[in-house]
């Protein structure tokens, strides 16, 4: 083989390696999307089972969401650190990353991602259902594109605005008719609307910090343990200020006295840990654009997963034909916003 042929073969091998990393990133993002839906369903089920012992008020539902989410994130973060340690990542890496001030932005943005976005999405989904809630959450790339244009001066072409229009059409179609057996449907959609705003601001704030940090260190430390502590503190403060300090103790008593609630909570914690960490790694392997496109296809996956979990007796799931059509249209719109359709599958252009 002459020198030129050798160089060409080397280039091809290098491109193949880049493609493999990007494909791995896409697979991780897809697993993250599935894990997101499964976590949401177990979380909603836990909050329903605990909430049945209390008066059904919006305040209590939000407090319960904060506590359950806080437990899942805090203990999920600890679980991930244990997993990392077994994999060979030294504990010394965590104080090292703390020393990098720029990385702490992820902690600050975790406040928006946790107590605001995720807690509101859990409350909202408990009212309107997984498919519809995920349709609203699926607007995150749209809001991110708008914020990126305004604050990061990102170039936003006609394709992005067309994609935004298609996603909004998808949300409208999905929301036209609530499914049977769902109360407070439109209230649920409204509450869930805090999620895409919170997630988008979180993404815009923390992009640079995640670029220079190991995602499997930053995620458990800041996003999970940091976020979990914030949620539990928020719950404690709100309960104390509103004169319901006893709620926290009662919630913990119920969790540890009912084996089914404890099991579902543990499962929610595991799937949340998988979801958070996989998507952080996926963003670094295949880029935030492609990773987001796959992650926010969750409305589509919520339908088969919801049906399977309904059959297993874990939760009751219902969706209308318009909900299914709306979810499909929304996902098409997301793909248009985030990428040229040819780019998403043309992994030769991963740079």
């Amino acid at each position: 083989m002459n020198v030129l042929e050798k160089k060409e073969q080397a280039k091809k091998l290098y491109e193949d390696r880049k493609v493999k990393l990007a494909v791995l990133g896409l697979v991780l993002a897809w697993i993250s999307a599935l894990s997101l839906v499964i976590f949401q369903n177990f979380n909603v089920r836990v909050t329903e089972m605990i909430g049945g012992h209390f008066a059904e008020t919006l305040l209590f539902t939000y407090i319960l969401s904060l506590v359950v989410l806080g437990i899942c994130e805090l203990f999920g973060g600890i679980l991930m650190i244990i997993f990392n340690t077994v994999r060979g990542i030294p504990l010394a890496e965590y104080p090292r990353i703390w020393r990098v001030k720029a990385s702490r932005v992820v902690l600050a943005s975790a406040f928006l991602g946790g107590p605001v976005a995720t807690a509101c999405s859990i409350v909202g989904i408990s009212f309107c259902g997984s498919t519809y809630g995920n349709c609203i959450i699926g607007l995150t790339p749209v809001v991110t594109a708008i914020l990126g244009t305004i604050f990061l001066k990102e170039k936003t072409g006609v394709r992005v605005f067309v994609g935004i229009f298609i996603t909004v059409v998808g949300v409208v179609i999905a929301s036209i008719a609530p499914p049977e057996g769902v109360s407070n449907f439109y209230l649920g959609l409204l509450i869930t609307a805090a999620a895409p705003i919170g997630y988008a601001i979180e993404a815009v704030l923390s992009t640079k910090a995640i670029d220079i940090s190991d995602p499997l260190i930053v995620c458990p430390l800041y996003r999970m343990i940091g976020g979990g502590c914030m949620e539990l503190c928020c719950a404690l403060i709100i309960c104390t200020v509103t004169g319901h300090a006893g709620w926290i103790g009662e919630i913990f008593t119920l969790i540890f006295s009912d084996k089914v609630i404890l099991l579902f909570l543990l499962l929610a914690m595991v799937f949340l840990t998988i979801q958070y960490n996989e998507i952080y790694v996926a963003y670094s392997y295949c880029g935030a654009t492609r990773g987001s496109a796959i992650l926010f296809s969750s409305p589509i996956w919520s339908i088969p997963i919801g049906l399977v979990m309904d059959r297993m007796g874990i939760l009751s799931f219902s969706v209308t034909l318009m909900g299914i059509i709306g979810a499909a249209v929304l996902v098409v719109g997301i793909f248009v916003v985030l990428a040229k359709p040819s780019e998403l599958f043309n992994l030769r252009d991963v740079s």
Partner: protein
Amino acid sequence: MKLPIKLRVLDYAIHKDGSFSAEEAAREIGHEYPGEKTVSVKNIEKIIRVYCGIGMLKASDIDLDEEDNLKIAYEVTSAGRACESMIP
């Protein structure tokens, strides 16, 4: 206190005068993190690939060695240099 390993790789690339290989980076950085598995050549290579994906490093020369394995030289880009202010 030492830098996190991923950031140390970028720091090394910024201060390196010219291109470098993953093996060279692992050798230089490895002395600073004795006994840590995360400074293996395989892990340093993975970190470099991720930086290349986000445009902070790039492959300046791609070739094959005698056993037809990839031999890549990397260098920092202007986007990578711009992150120097984030390094404590």
